[in-house]
């Protein structure tokens, strides 16, 4: 029952209730990852601005399935006036893991006024793909991600600091246990686990979990 993409896109554009939008977006997103993606991208990006959380989740999944082809359009259409939409777009970029998103994620984590945007950016900075990058380039990328995450350890919102922990953990798991960057990541996690430095229990619990996982895999260089 392959319906042409135009029909699926039209169903999203014409949805007249939040349930209809959800279903139409899920249908469109479910068909991505093949021919027709190019047409779906703009439509899925527009859904991110509709303030419909269910539909936005589906649209983000669709954009992640589309992958690298969605990166440029996402970067080009970031909505500076709508932080809900921006948070979803940053989530999509984080999920696609393309290094072209690096600068945007750094800026979002350091400066965006929306905690939901900073939170998505922190997670994304921990999981950028190293594909195609060699030694020194790779090291530089990791260094920039780590520096951005370190700076955000003192963000005023607990949920951003929580996301920083998750970002630090996934970044550190790819670093050699003897490396300087790995030690820095662990130092940041240790401070986020200390009651005298971090007042939100769930952030401390998550940091402790991250440190435990890193210790368990101390002999494992990690790769992705």
């Amino acid at each position: 029952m392959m319906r042409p993409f135009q029909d699926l896109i039209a169903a999203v554009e014409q949805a007249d209730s939040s349930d209809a939008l959800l279903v139409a977006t899920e249908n469109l997103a479910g068909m991505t990852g093949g021919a027709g993606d190019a047409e779906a991208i703009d439509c899925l990006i527009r859904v991110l601005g509709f303030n419909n959380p269910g539909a936005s989740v589906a649209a983000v999944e669709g954009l992640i399935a589309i992958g690298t082809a969605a990166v440029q359009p996402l970067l080009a259409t970031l909505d500076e006036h709508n932080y809900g939409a921006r948070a979803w777009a940053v989530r999509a970029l984080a999920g696609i893991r393309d290094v072209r998103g690096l600068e945007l994620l750094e800026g979002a984590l350091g400066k965006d006024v929306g905690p939901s945007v900073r939170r998505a950016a922190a997670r994304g900075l921990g999981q950028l793909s190293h594909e195609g990058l060699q030694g020194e380039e790779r090291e530089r990328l990791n260094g920039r991600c780590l520096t951005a995450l370190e700076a955000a350890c003192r963000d005023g919102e607990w949920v951003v600091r929580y996301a920083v922990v998750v970002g630090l953990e996934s970044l550190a798991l790819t670093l050699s246990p003897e490396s300087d960057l790995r030690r820095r990541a662990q130092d940041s996690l240790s401070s986020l686990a200390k009651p005298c430095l971090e007042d939100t229990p769930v952030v401390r619990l998550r940091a402790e979990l991250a440190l435990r996982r890193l210790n368990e895999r101390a002999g494992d260089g990690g790769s992705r």
Partner: protein
Amino acid sequence: MTGTTDPASPRAGAGEPISESEALQRLRQIDDHSDQYYAAWWLGRMRSRHPEAVPLLQAALRRRQPREAASGVEHNAVARNAARALGKLGDPQAIPDLLAALEDEDDGLREAAARALGELRAEGAVAVLCQRLASGLAGAGAPLDPRSPRLREPCEAMLEALGDIGVAETTVLAVIEPFLDHDRPLIRSAAGRALFLLSGDPRRAEGLVSLLEHPQLQVRRAALMDLGAVGWRPALEPIRRTLAENSLKLIALRGLVEKGQGEPDTESLLAAMDELL
């Protein structure tokens, strides 16, 4: 944590960056109400530990104001923000002034005072709260006038405060129970939350879970907050499935981690939170 307690450098999301001494100064003067309004909010948001903060907020709470339509300042706006800040600062010295505000004719001020007393776990407030709610659905729970969204008493805040304060006497439970049948789902949610906190009766938490599927987003959001406040861990899967913003689900799941116990275990809850970032 540094970010919320270092008043010299408020972080993003904290509004206009001012210093603690500037905030105290703005609250101390009484001519510019919007400056006072902002200062009161700021001191609460930044969890000020300055010795003058609580006395100045108490003074601001005692000073009632008429509505100033021209400047956009609402009825008792400063007093309301002062009450909210006093709830956050956690100093029991503020309780007598908050109890007095609970008797004010401004229902918005009574609402702010009730919430603050709940945050302060002020057992001394239980009798007044019960007395104001005792008239039940036909009294306290009836609309202020037929077209008003407001009720005669700020029931949601008062019910939640009774739950937070935690005096689990049968007389208190009996005052709250009728509100489980209120026609507004937000009031039912508040009553369920309070009763679960006081009695631990799982039926009350299950009532909150069923509100996660309510057609109105506003109700689903309130149920998420209430489940977070009670920390009912079996709500994990329903929370994940709820159609609402990830930000609210994260707050709810934080509550399950920090206030709940048993199954699902903490690691499963944290994994669910990771997925929502």
